């Protein structure tokens, strides 16, 4: 597909757990399953390592979307990490929605080490979604000052 450099290219931060999702991203790579270069991956040991502050910081610094990927519930390398992450992110996303911030800019997806296809599909659909939302304005400043 030809690349249109004029269109809106969002900045997307993907936090991937080392054991499943980062490996899933590697598999997507070795299987040459393309997804937009807008996605930049940060490796964390587990989805439960992701502090909501990291996500808010990304938005404050200009990210247009943040996605968190971890092992499927029940398959966490550390047994229970993704269960905590699931609660934290549910509450955080609900709060962002409450503040009137588009909830399409945040996502959690469980991607195993064997799911290269899912990783690629997830990133494609997430980038698509964020592109449709346009540049992030509201999450830049949750104090919401004018």
């Amino acid at each position, binding site marked *: 597909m030809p690349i249109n450099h004029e269109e809106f290219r969002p900045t997307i931060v993907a936090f991937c757990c080392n054991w499943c999702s980062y490996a899933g991203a590697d598999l997507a790579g070795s299987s040459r399953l393309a997804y937009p270069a807008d996605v930049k991956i940060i490796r964390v040991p587990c989805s439960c390592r992701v502090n909501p502050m*990291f996500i808010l910081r990304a938005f404050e610094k200009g990210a247009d979307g943040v996605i968190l990927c971890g092992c499927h519930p029940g398959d966490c390398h*550390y047994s229970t990490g993704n269960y905590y992450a699931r609660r934290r992110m549910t509450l955080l996303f609900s709060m962002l929605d409450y503040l009137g911030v588009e909830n399409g800019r945040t996502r959690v997806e469980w991607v195993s080490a064997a799911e290269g296809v899912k990783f690629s599909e997830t990133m494609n659909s997430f980038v698509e979604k964020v592109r449709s939302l346009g540049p992030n304005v509201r999450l830049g400043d949750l104090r919401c000052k004018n």
Partner: protein
Amino acid sequence: MQKIGVFVCHCGSNIAATVDVKKVVEMALLEQGVVHAEDYPYMCSEAGQSRIAAAIAEKGLTGIVVCSCSPRMHEATFRKAAERAGLNPYMVEIANIREHCSWIHKDMAEATEKATILMRAAVAKVHLNAPLQAGESMVTKRALVIGGGIAGIQTAIDIADAGYKVDIVEKTPSIGGRMSQLDKTFPTLDCSACILTPKMVEAAAHENITIHTYSEVEKVSGFVGNFTVDIRKKARYVDIAKCTGCGVCQEKCPSKKIPNEFNRGLNNRSAIYTPFAQAIPNVPVIDTTACIKFKTGKCGVCEKVCQAGAINYKQQDEIITENYGAIVVATGFDTIKLDQYGEYAYGQSKDVITSLELERVMNAAGPTKGHLERLSDGKAPKEIVFIQCVGSRCSDDRGKPYCSKICCMYTAKHAMLIRDKYPDTNVTVFYIDVRTPGKNFDEFYRRAVEDYGVNYIKGQVGKVIPQPDGSLLVQGVDLLDQKQILKKADMVVLATAIEPNTDVRKIATMLTASIDTNNFLTEAHPKLRPVESPTAGVFLSGVCQGPKDIPETVAQAGAAAVKVIGLLAKDKLKTNPCTAQSDELLCNGCSQCANVCPYGAITYETKLINDHGIREDRRVAVVNSALCQGCGACTVTCPSGAMDLKGFSNRQILAEVDAICR
């Protein structure tokens, strides 16, 4: 201030074809703290590594960033190279510009821009890296093998022969597994039991092997070298020490109408039973769901007839706790359920059977004493149709997307054996592809066709229609002849897809071993580490990792054993230094972190703290770095940020975020 070196790998053309590596080097030199940057065709090569070492020595680098393939590939390589050059190995960060960049993007400008950003994030992180020292942990010199089939038995024997203790946990009353149900094995047509039972006996007699049959793994904790496992030894209601295996109890048991699992439910067994004659241990168990004594309180025949006094109705499940250094999963497979394949009339006609059922029918110890006969009326079948790929290679949810691998060969075996023993019986095989890679495999298949006259038809069967006269009408197609075929058969055999044992998901969860969508356990690397799970200390043996036949299973079992031996041979293991650490000055002592720690690694101490001149006793969190595995769950519960993770600290991750969003 760090002095950082950036090394950009071409990976031949894998990276360089899509990423302008020179440009990345150029951009790296603009980054604060970067005093050296270079590119090289293969950074992981000996020459590439010496360039890194030379730069460390010449420029006095304090941290390095390698822009290359995934850290899961070569992080260890570059850390070792740095260590050899006198740099702390944890001062190395990898920017993954291959799997996460060059391999998935086509546009050079775009991929170069992304590679630059990934490089910047790694540089930003390495600025905040601190030298870390790996700790040590002891290795328990004992292995656990989960599953007592041929895979588990072979792994256990190999480990035990090397002089280490091994426990086998098998959930059924006897070891032996799926192989014990087979009649003959391809391509040599050996009698399966004849080659398996000596192995079973060897395992049982081995001084280093302890077998827990009728037992299940209940709980697993700990980590590589130091697993603690709870094993539930289900009550057999028969004392193993006293039972002589005479079999009188089974003969006299009045409850005899229970489907015999070993014969795939094709005949019945008694409530007190040993699954098969060569069972090890040759000690029966009482099936309490069928036992009259357990259901009504009245009976007790087995107790009366047992001369050894081995029957004990009051026996209870027992939970034993053992420590292991390594765990091997060898949980094997079963055939899939065929409920959703109505078109093949399985379950509608007794004469439509699976291949595994045919194994039992052909076996001398099976329900028909080895005579090939229809299960509906006991008549000898004159026309047998085999259908391949039943549930294999299916993209819908009725079956499995993978090739079960063994069906082509066992179908050829069955066809050949039937034609050999019953020459007046015609055998037709409907196939999609005949897959026979393997030594002497294709020759074997050709013998079935050429020497034994098995009729192979390329095409699938659409429907099997039971007829009023008891025969079966098979509607198929011959794609090469362009003809639809209606064939009358006396028996239809389905080459049913295999799937991992249903318990494996539960076991994988306990072991935190990764598992794929088909319930096969994932290997640490599909090519280079095929018998290891990504979870350290957990190894894979047999079909639990993917479909395979007996020789492959035995080979993999041996390979897993070698890996286990390699681990158990070490006295101590280096531990991951990326563990949590609490800042005493910031800690509130609120216990939230301890609540989420999966390893119980956080405890609390009351300590005298000197907080900028204020001296007071405070309750503060203390992390046991030997137990901590570095997940980071605690760091997020900590509102003050006292708890942090070495190697993935708050500031490091925020620096990466900032670099990406810059």
